């Protein structure tokens, strides 16, 4: 199986450690990971903000870059959702027949990272150790978009030393929503304030999720409030082992 990592432009630029963690875990499980360097962005921001024409070259680029692989793995639920749900919409409405066909063939091979572990590789214990109190935030795209369900929870509960604690109102949005947080900053901040107080109430050391964008939002709020809670992509937790000083 030829596995390609789709790091996403956001993680590539701001959260490279998440990509390193994915590579580390997959290699630990005995797989080889490739990083096609032609990759850039799935076009989520353009699509969600209404700039569909500007997203089209990115859809075509995505297909060109990843078409040849057996599996495309991405540590972002929202980018996986963008490819899975909206690339077919864009290709179907604006693209030529060939692109429509290629998107149709590629989409089933694109996996969000926790899905790839539990559904394709069929593992829940990835040999991780992380002795901390951890809360998991099911992001909207994880929960209602991809329907990841208990997959992240199963992976986290198999981590040695990890104590998993529940958030109150786990299904409520943190208020990020991409450009929503800029266009509707005040409403977004009101949602964020509720989320950060729910995070703080758990007494967790670390808040994790399957998407760094929501974590950047919640983490940005926690940091501004001077909170000691750290935010980490759950891949970084699953990559950690006994030897790591964390």
């Amino acid at each position: 199986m030829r596995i390609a990592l789709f790091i996403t432009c956001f993680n590539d630029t701001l959260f490279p450690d998440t990509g390193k963690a994915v590579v580390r875990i997959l290699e630990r499980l005995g797989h080889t990971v490739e990083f096609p360097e032609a990759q850039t962005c799935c076009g989520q921001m353009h699509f969600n903000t209404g700039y569909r024409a500007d997203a089209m070259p990115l859809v075509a680029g995505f297909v060109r870059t990843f078409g040849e692989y057996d599996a495309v793995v991405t540590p972002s639920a929202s980018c996986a959702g963008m490819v899975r749900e909206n690339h077919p919409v864009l290709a179907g409405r604006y693209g030529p027949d060939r692109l429509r066909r290629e998107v149709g063939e590629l989409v089933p091979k694109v996996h969000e990272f926790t899905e790839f572990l539990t559904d394709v590789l069929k593992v829940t214990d990835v040999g991780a150790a992380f002795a901390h109190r951890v809360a998991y935030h099911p992001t909207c795209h994880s929960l209602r978009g991809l329907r990841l369900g208990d997959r992240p929870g199963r992976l986290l509960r198999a981590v040695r030393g990890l104590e998993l604690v529940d958030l109150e109102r786990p299904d409520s949005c943190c208020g990020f929503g991409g450009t929503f947080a800029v266009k509707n900053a005040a409403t977004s901040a009101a949602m964020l304030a509720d989320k950060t107080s729910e995070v703080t109430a758990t007494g967790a050391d670390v808040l994790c999720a399957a998407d760094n964008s929501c974590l950047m939002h919640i983490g940005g709020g926690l940091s501004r409030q001077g909170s000691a809670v750290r935010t980490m992509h759950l891949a970084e937790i699953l990559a950690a082992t006994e030897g790591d000083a964390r």
Partner: protein
Amino acid sequence: MSGRMDGRGVVFLGSPAFPEAARTALGDTRLRTNLRRVTTTIRDKRLRVTGELDDWEALRATGEAIKRRTLRHLPFYLEQLEESVTRAGGVVHWAANAAEANRIVTELVRATGEREVVKIKSMATQEIGLNEALAEAGIAAYETDLAELIVQLADDRPSHILVPAIHKNRTQIRDLFATEMARWGRPAPEGLADDPAALAEAARLHLREKFLRAKVAVSGANFACADTGTVTVVESEGNGRMCLTLPGTLITVMGIEKVVPTWRDLEVFLQLLPRSSTGERMNPYTSTWTGVTPGDGPHTFHLVLLDNGRSDTLADTVGRQVLNCIRCSACLNVCPVYERTGGHAYGSVYPGPIGAVLTPQLVGVEHAASLPFASTLCGACYDACPVKIDIPQVLTHLRAEVVEAKRAGSRLPSPESLAMKAATAVLISPARLGYAQRAAALGGRLLARRGRIGRLPGPFRGWSDSRDTPAPPTESFRTWWRKNREGEQE
């Protein structure tokens, strides 16, 4: 805050764009406490009564399928409805827009010689601003639904589809009754307390006088069966039953999408609606009537079929699913944005997620351009919708239409569209992305203190008011990969 409408209806006059209106609403801490309490209560009730049905998902799918079939053949079913209603002794009127509907209803009331009507809670008549149109013709329209009565006494706007006075608490309502009821009819009892029973009793006495005097009633409709001509109103308080049975003349204003093919279809919707709406297995009052029956109920029945943007909505292959809506308001109660801002911020008769997708389609995206962006696309509304309207999908579809309308309406590209173009230019090329990452890392280091960036300028100021931004790392993932891994692959 008065309820004066724009000429097309649907949107209130003088409403600021959503972000601005929301900012004002967010400052009202009492409103936020009310909203959180009420939406959470209804949300939990809904989850209980939908969770107890094994076939809930099948019911949703069936409801959606019936609606989709009806909309596909809408002209056929509407003509069938007209025939059935006429056969049963009713009179059907067709109104292309708000002004036409208002004119029809006004003339019908005038023809009776009456100067007042009693009203059942109705979104369609609110959409067209009927009360204001009647007032201009010297006809008083009395709202008889408790919450609508509260809104009317306060000369306010409704802020929720199901609970229009969700933004008021009982002390405010007591004060309102004590000062305003006398202007409209029977005054509130002396020394009125603010407990729910006392308030309900005051409303009952005030309204009873109107029910017994009224010769004309105006209602909306939840459903109308094309095969029998039967019209249905679903309610909780019984005021609707009074309006539907006591006055001699009944005028019903109904959006054209409310037609269902057959009487049997009600079986599906009368399960979906109350469970999604009030979180009850069944609502207390379901009234159905078929034309007129001599000696029983109104002797004259008029049905006004309202288009007002619905045909245009139907023409949009993505947007038309919004016409599935049965006005249950489940999407409002689960929406994290609505929960914080309340309904007034939307500036529309239809607030919340459904308002954000319905309003721009009814009045044109250029007249409600901020609404499709009033969502994080979290998807809670889609999960809750009993007729499976994919609201996030319609939202992104309408966002594209807003962008298109702005592009068409201006000779100069907006700063945002330039930024998006620039982003694409960078993102189609891995090399350019690499340069941009190095520039961001450098810029970030200049702005950051201890790895965090505090204040940001321009459009990002709102973001940085309550969030720190992480400084970009010195090395992107692709740089790390090239340095450390590339050789190993070959």
